[in-house]
């Protein structure tokens, strides 16, 4: 099913802006849905999730820019937590710190090392940043017990695996999206 969207914008710059906002809105909607569904997956460690929504963050970074990625990440955590009902709960703050840290790290590494790494490498860096930020938040705000760091190997190993999976997913998604007519003007 092909969707044709017409815009009333006349200037190219306006059209660019509209297109960007529309695409980001779609990505935020998708990411929120993924975030919500993923919260239903049980896990021995409550806040440790695959983070599949990060695939959409990295898609935004790859298709657009750093701020696009940050926007998608921030908004999907907001919307997702409102839907789940975990807004402003401890797990919300933990997830927020991880998501923002991940988006920032991925955005910066893509900007400077985008040529060196494929999206897999960027995603792995983001996953690590997310896990570090989450453990850090848990330690600083909730459990000031250095024994929390005993979870470190589990997090790092798990982060590596999910980073790779998300990166591969991101690569597939971006390469497919670039072929769609709606995204033809986005390099």
């Amino acid at each position: 099913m092909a969707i044709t969207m017409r815009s009333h914008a006349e200037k190219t710059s306006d059209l660019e802006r509209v297109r960007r906002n529309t695409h980001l809105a779609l990505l935020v909607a998708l990411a929120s849905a993924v975030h919500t569904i993923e919260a239903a997956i049980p896990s021995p460690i409550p806040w440790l999730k695959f983070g599949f929504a990060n695939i959409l963050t990295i898609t935004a970074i790859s298709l657009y820019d750093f701020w696009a990625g940050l926007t998608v990440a921030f908004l999907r955590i907001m919307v997702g937590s409102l839907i789940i009902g975990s807004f402003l709960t401890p797990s919300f703050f933990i997830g927020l710190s991880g998501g923002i840290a991940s988006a920032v790290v991925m955005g910066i590494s893509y900007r400077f090392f985008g040529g060196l790494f494929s999206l897999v490498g960027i995603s792995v860096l983001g996953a690590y940043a997310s896990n570090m930020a989450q453990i850090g938040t848990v330690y600083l705000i909730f459990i000031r017990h250095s024994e929390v760091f005993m979870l470190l190997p589990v997090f790092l190993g798990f982060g590596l695996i999910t980073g790779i999976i998300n990166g591969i997913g991101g690569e597939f998604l971006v390469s497919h999206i670039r072929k769609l007519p709606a995204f033809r003007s986005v390099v």
Partner: protein
Amino acid sequence: MLTISDKILIASLTILTLFSYSIASGGRQGDEIRIEADGKVIGTFSLKKDGLHEIKGVLGASRIEVKDGKTSFLSSPCKNKLCIHQGEINKSGQMAACLPNRVVVRVLGGDGDYDALTR
């Protein structure tokens, strides 16, 4: 799809993950031990002072030794002597216990003995 830099990154992070296993299980040397018998706290003792503690439990007296910053059960009136077989403990959070005699030795650490505090 995977560039060389990707593979280097993944390889080095794998090594880092394996390395973090040794950091995580390191634990911290405890400063004091707390001995409880039959659910009641008998006392808190320093791990830095060598000594022998005779603790009276429900079955009899268990002897707990503190030596070189570590503590262990020396003798106990239980049947299995599992407490003695546990060996020495010294990291904060570690615990040795003689269940039949209801004697528990817990190593206290710098972070205090609380898992979480709300203020």
